[in-house]
């Protein structure tokens, strides 16, 4: 029986693969938005505590993670940086191969743990770990500064998913606090990006290499 949880985690893994393979920044932002939505919905489905409070709270989280942050990124891309293409450190086919590697690695890692929740929904842990590893991949393998922000977001999503899915007692206030931090973090990164664009008129991190010993 196909439960919505498995479908969603499958969607997550596919989104990671898609993001890794894509060449433009705008598609990646759309992927992150999707992930944001899925990541907030999944724990609610998983723990079935659909009380009204948690539902409203879930909606607020989904709103921030799924819509506000990606729109912020989208705005910074189109109005500030005006450049959509993306020159990765390693070529496209190499990144796709890396994406596959991430998925295999996450499946291998999650197979080593035995959690009660995993029995019914085997796919959720690999999805979380692959999102996490995907984030790290974007941080290391992409040269553009914006992709680093995206990588950071995916990392956050991955960690949130692991946290929310595996441990039962998630305090809403605490989750909200984390999200607030992430939101302010992305805004700060946006401001810094804006200044870098104005100073270096290009957000390629290769230019950011003057401070060395």
């Amino acid at each position, binding site marked *: 029986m196909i439960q919505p949880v498995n479908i969603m985690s499958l969607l997550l893994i596919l989104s990671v693969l898609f993001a890794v393979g894509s060449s433009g920044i705008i598609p990646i932002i759309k992927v992150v938005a999707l992930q944001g939505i899925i990541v907030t919905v999944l724990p609610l489905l998983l723990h079935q505590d659909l009380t009204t409070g948690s539902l409203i709270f879930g909606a607020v989280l989904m709103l921030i993670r799924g819509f506000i942050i990606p729109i912020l990124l989208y705005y910074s891309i189109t109005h500030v940086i005006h450049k959509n293409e993306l020159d990765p450190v390693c070529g496209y086919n190499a990144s796709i191969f890396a994406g596959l590697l991430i998925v295999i690695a996450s499946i291998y890692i999650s197979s080593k743990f035995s959690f009660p929740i995993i029995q019914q929904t085997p796919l959720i842990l690999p999805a979380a770990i692959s999102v996490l590893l995907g984030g790290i991949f974007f*941080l290391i393998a992409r040269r553009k500064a914006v992709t680093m922000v995206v990588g950071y977001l995916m990392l956050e999503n991955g*960690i949130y998913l692991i946290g929310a899915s595996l*441990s039962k007692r998630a305090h809403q206030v605490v989750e909200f606090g984390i999200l607030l*931090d992430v939101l302010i973090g992305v805004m700060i990164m946006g401001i810094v990006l804006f*200044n870098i664009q104005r*100073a270096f008129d290009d957000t390629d991190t290769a230019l950011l*290499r003057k401070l060395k010993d």
Partner: protein
Amino acid sequence: MMLEYLLFVPLIAGILAFIMPDKINRLLLVSTGIWNLGFSFYIWFERPEAIFNQYFKISPEGLLVLLVISFLFFIVSLYSISYLEVTKLSNKSVYTGSMLFFLATMSMATISDHIIVFWIAIEATTLASAPLILLHKTKESLEATWKYVIICSVGIALALLGSVLMTISIDIAGVDVSLTFSALTDSAGQLDKAWLKAGFIFVLVGYGTKMGLAPMHTWLPDAHSEAPSPASALLSGVLLNCAYLGILKTSGILFSADLGVFTGNVLIAFGLMSVIASATFILKQTDYKRLLAYSSIENMGIIAFGTGIGGIAAYGAILHLIHHSLIKSSLFLSSGNILLGYGSKLIDKTGSLAKYLPKTFVCFFGGIIGLVGLPPFGIFISKLLIILGAFQQGRYIVVSILLVCLLLISAGLMRYVMKISFNPIETTIALKEKPLLYLPQLTLLVVSVILCFWIPDALYQTIIQSISSISGGFNG
């Protein structure tokens, strides 16, 4: 008077700072500093209860770090009054606002007991201090801010992952305990060992990035040398202590879960790596603010080393923490004067400091003497304690490596400081040494000298309690 005032007053002041004109901003800065200092003393004696007491609770080590933060913020705010007049910062309101936010977030970190709330506070400190580094809007400061924000956020995200793994270790053990440091330390025995260790590693690496321990220290020299001097004084003096607070509390948990040997070895390894890494870059350095930044990495390494060893070395580590904050921030403030005077951060561009800026020379040279660990200043005592503790544990090789690196660092530091203070150079110095430009540094050094020879009993008891979990039977 609820504990959270500590948090809200600077927050509100920070928001106000953005709308007020500059003149009032400076007053706002100093008054919040005084208020915060007074309130932390009040907390120290009365120990009031927090409203959200499942998130915030006063712990001895948190209290120590809070006292250091508020004292230093007060001193730095005094310094920044004349600093803002002299320097030509474009947006002074951003400076005051983010300084106040910085104070708020750091205070929140010291009093927060819940693991995730502590994480939120530390993440907030990064975000509050990012604009401070951005102030000069030069290419280097942009690069430094970018590295600072990205590396710290990624690092701290891993710390969040670590905290999450800790919660998992609770679930697996099936024990119902609230997710606070104090509760966890009490019931650490029943937690699942493997997950606890994995959690500790992620937490250590996460907060270690923020604290500047060795492999993750790369952002620190750039950030601390590009920020304006009062900001880098706070960054180097106090922010690293907050990150250390997280590691201390988590290692407290593991010590009571009798995983002490594992945490000790890991902390010693990181401590040694940071001392070696900072030695490499202090020996050959061109920029004196980077020199001070690397010496912060070294001192944080020593503190981690001391905590790892435990016993009297842990006591020495806490002393080292206090004295290092005092001396390092006074040094950064003096380096601010040198930067304002000579206009360049390069050591070769500066010279005969003793002739041109005699008062700054006294503070700067005195601070370096303190940093190197010579008697009148407190680091001599803490370094001696850590060495004796290490020998007592019988770790001869490790402590001899540490001693050799400390020697090299003191040689490197002295070489460049003598070059700055005594090399004859003919320049005209724009800076006129106003009292508020050197008195703050002097007071910090004098406090370090006083604390070196006389520690008030209350402070001593707080220190003993703060290391009771990891000191293994050292009761003074």
